[in-house]
């Protein structure tokens, strides 16, 4: 892809030719590589370098059209502008999107430095070695059917016809390992782990390996569980998965569309236990995917979502902020209809609890490590979920893997049934979060 300055110049010149006065462009280029291995041999190696831009064009009637294209050259940009211009005739006539008032504001945060990519041979070598170590860790581990080591270098930008122009780049490296066991007379079991960092050198491959080994071994001896209501401890991964699935609770666009569990009047109401606080923080120091501006060019910042159980803010685009008479929060995703999405959750204990709990002495508690199949088991607009999970029944620190079970409930009730938010947080790709203790969740086993 050409540099941002060149794209801006081309867009400006082509827009002039087409009689377009007002437009903006958001785009990115991604250079990535990934490897998978099987029994010591590279299985599939992928590399990709691709670009894409999205242009929005406002016509004289102030309706907007949008087009995205992967052809980021003169011809491609001209065609995209022309198509967006055509589409603008059919754009929404109410609540028409506009440039973000913050698109030219100074960025306080500086993007993280990029790390040079490693050689693909180095990726393969690392993953082959890790796969071998995982296979050697226990006789029951028959394979690592899902594995991958990847690196990604991305550059993104936003510019508009009013003079806004900003760009940032970031690099990341990630690994996932998912083992499978085979033992005579037993069901196959599996477990996995994931790590992400800015570059291969900083990637905690050993931590990923150890976590996979530990989890896999812990699931070898499993028991069915009796159906009923249980006290449940949700891992960081499990709680953040649920929070993400029900993010319409604090998504201003969903709320304005009447497709949310909240309404505009929900701000300031208690939606969770007073023990819980949640923020969205794109600039969190632990966020590998740190981003300094959204697709409309609005600078990102830390936003409190739930403050001691009270719904404190919605996440906004420029359009939703204007409609609700507030400031955009830097959460816009560009499109013909601008959508809103979170960046990186920070979940934490709001206050010192009156009572603390520990898995070391709790009895008959279910520890859910991860929930699965959210696309099938979450009814985001109803608030309900029914999901298979990986986890253990814990009695005074003794963990017994659960054979096969689902957890079900209503997310709004779950938030209010939180009895303890642990103090020690765990870092996941989607956010940072401690273990969350919840009372009376339905578990279906046998």
């Amino acid at each position, binding site marked *: 892809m050409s540099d941002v300055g060149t794209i801006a110049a081309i867009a400006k010149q082509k827009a002039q030719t087409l009689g377009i006065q007002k437009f903006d462009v958001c785009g990115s280029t991604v250079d990535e590589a990934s490897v998978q291995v099987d029994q010591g041999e590279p299985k*599939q190696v992928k590399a990709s370098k691709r670009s894409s831009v999205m242009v929005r064009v406002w016509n004289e009637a102030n309706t907007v059209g949008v087009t995205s294209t992967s052809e980021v050259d003169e011809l491609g940009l001209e065609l995209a502008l022309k198509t967006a211009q055509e589409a603008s005739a059919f754009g929404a006539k*109410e609540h028409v999107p506009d440039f973000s008032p913050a698109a030219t504001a100074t960025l306080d945060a500086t993007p993280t430095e990029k790390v040079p990519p490693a050689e693909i041979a180095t990726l393969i070598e690392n993953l082959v070695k890790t796969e071998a170590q995982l296979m050697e860790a226990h006789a029951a581990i028959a394979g690592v059917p899902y594995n991958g080591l990847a690196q990604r270098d991305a550059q993104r930008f936003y510019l508009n016809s009013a003079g806004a122009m900003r760009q940032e780049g970031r690099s990341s490296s990630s690994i996932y390992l998912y083992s499978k066991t085979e033992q005579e007379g037993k069901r196959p079991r599996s477990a996995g782990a994931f790590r992400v960092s800015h570059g291969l050198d900083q990637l905690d491959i050993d931590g990923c390996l150890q976590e996979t080994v530990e989890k896999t071994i812990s699931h070898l001896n499993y028991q069915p569980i009796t159906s009923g209501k249980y006290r449940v401890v949700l891992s960081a991964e499990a709680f953040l998965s649920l929070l993400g699935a029900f993010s319409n609770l604090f998504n201003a666009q969903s709320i304005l569309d009447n497709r949310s569990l909240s309404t505009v009047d929900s701000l300031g109401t208690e939606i969770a236990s007073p023990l819980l606080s949640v923020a969205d923080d794109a600039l969190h120091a632990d966020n590998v995917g740190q981003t300094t501006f959204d697709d409309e060019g609005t600078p990102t910042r830390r936003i409190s979502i739930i403050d001691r159980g009270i719904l404190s803010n919605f996440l906004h685009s420029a359009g939703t902020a204007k409609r609700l008479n507030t400031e955009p929060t830097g959460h816009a995703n560009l499109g013909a209809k601008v959508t809103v999405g979170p960046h990186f959750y920070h979940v934490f204990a709001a206050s010192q609890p009156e009572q603390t709990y520990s898995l070391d002495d709790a009895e008959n508690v279910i520890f859910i490590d991860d929930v699965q199949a959210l696309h099938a*088991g979450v009814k985001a607009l109803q608030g309900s979920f029914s999901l298979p999970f990986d986890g253990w029944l814990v009695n005074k620190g003794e963990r017994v893997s659960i054979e096969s079970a689902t957890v079900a409930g209503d997310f709004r009730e779950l938030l209010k049934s939180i009895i303890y938010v642990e103090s020690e947080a765990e870092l996941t790709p989607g956010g940072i979060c401690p273990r969350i203790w919840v009372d009376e969740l339905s578990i279906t086993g046998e």
Partner: protein
Amino acid sequence: MPPTALLSRELPTLDYSATRDRFDETWRSPLSTLLGLGRAAGADFVEFFLERVNYISCLAEEDAITSISPRLIAGAGVRVFLAKGDCYVSTNDLSFKGLKAALEKALSILGLSLPNPQAFIPEINLELLRDYAAANQKETWLSDCSSMQEMGDILLTANAQLHQQANHVQSRRAAYFRDWQEILVAASDGVFARDIRLTQSVGYSLLCAEGSDRASINKRVGATNNPNFLRAWQYADDAAEVAESAGQMLHADYVESGNYPIIMANEFGGVIFHEACGHLLETTQIERKTSPFSEMKGKKIAHENLTAWDEGLSPNAFGSIDMDDEGMPVQRTLLIENGILKNFLSDRAGCIRTGQPRTGSGRRQSFTHAAASRMRNTYIAPGNFTNEDLFASVEKGIYCKKMGGGSVGPTGEFNFGVDEAYLIENGKITKPLKGATLIGEAKEIMKKISMSSQDLGLAAGFCGSISGSIYVTVGQPHIKVDEITVGGR
């Protein structure tokens, strides 16, 4: 036009100018040269996949069009095999230089390098262009589809119809997309094939609310190869169906968890077979050893009343294609016959790694993915029972009328959500239920599908897996599963 055997050093001076906006014969020379270059470098097999996409989506919310979003994409991927290993490199750059750079990167990943300047580069003798687009009159499909104006008008009319039919409406949407794709496959075994595909889908999303009760119901229909698809949409029928379902589910009780016999409705009920068995018959699962059926070909894996197919040939079905994404004509593949496993679904890599013959099942979302063995139109064949027979056999169970999505894990455990369910008592439907999830283990459940009715129906769906999200059909007649775990409250 270069000579058929040129020297490597002459490559930089070549001036290939293939047509930018159409994949036609002008691509033969550059691709043939690049394929020869890859083979001369030592690759066992090289394949180029070129793609152009003209996509548009349109959304009506309440009584306004809130989004019309066109997307224009062009790109290519090159796949290089060396023994059983392979690598895949994709790029947006369709120039000769861009494609050569992608090839060079793929070769270098496998430890190969371009031949020295003195080396001869034989062009690969590609077959006569196998042009399914020209042969099947697809060239005008894009211009024959609904215009932006027409798609907006139809969606607004349809969404107004939903407003008339449903009660307690909180939000109503009608959404449509058209995906036009032109592809060209050229490979070092001589494959040279072009196709145009047209996939369209339209549907409703309805949210009803009264007090604290809520019901959200979606319905989507889809088809391939029919430029008049949107114009022919029977939206009044679909609006009535969605409104009826939402009305039933709005005040439904939550299902009580437990083990039940279930009856699954036809059409999208086929997602159970797709998730519980179909994925496990793909060679991508066989080679990973994540399928319990890996060693079961020719053996009984299902109830003797069950026969199942996967094919790409049903006219206009959502998973139908003339050729797969590796240039192979599609076929009708018998998966299970009377409970006996007959065939796996195999692509080129699956064939190389597992020895299973290719079935025209190499599919991918786009040029950014290497093809993998994937399903097309997958369904359980009609059986000998009637729906009345099925219901009469259930004393207490669940009727799963409308299924949600689902997934299968590496150990064969599957799950899927039920959007619309009813309690069956003494062979009769007695009350609506919500919040059900079906969970089970593939190997066990296949033997419990004991009765199939005769009303086979297909439904459009989306399948996400190793090579991205693709269009598929799931299907079945009404079936009975003797026992399954139902997760609920």
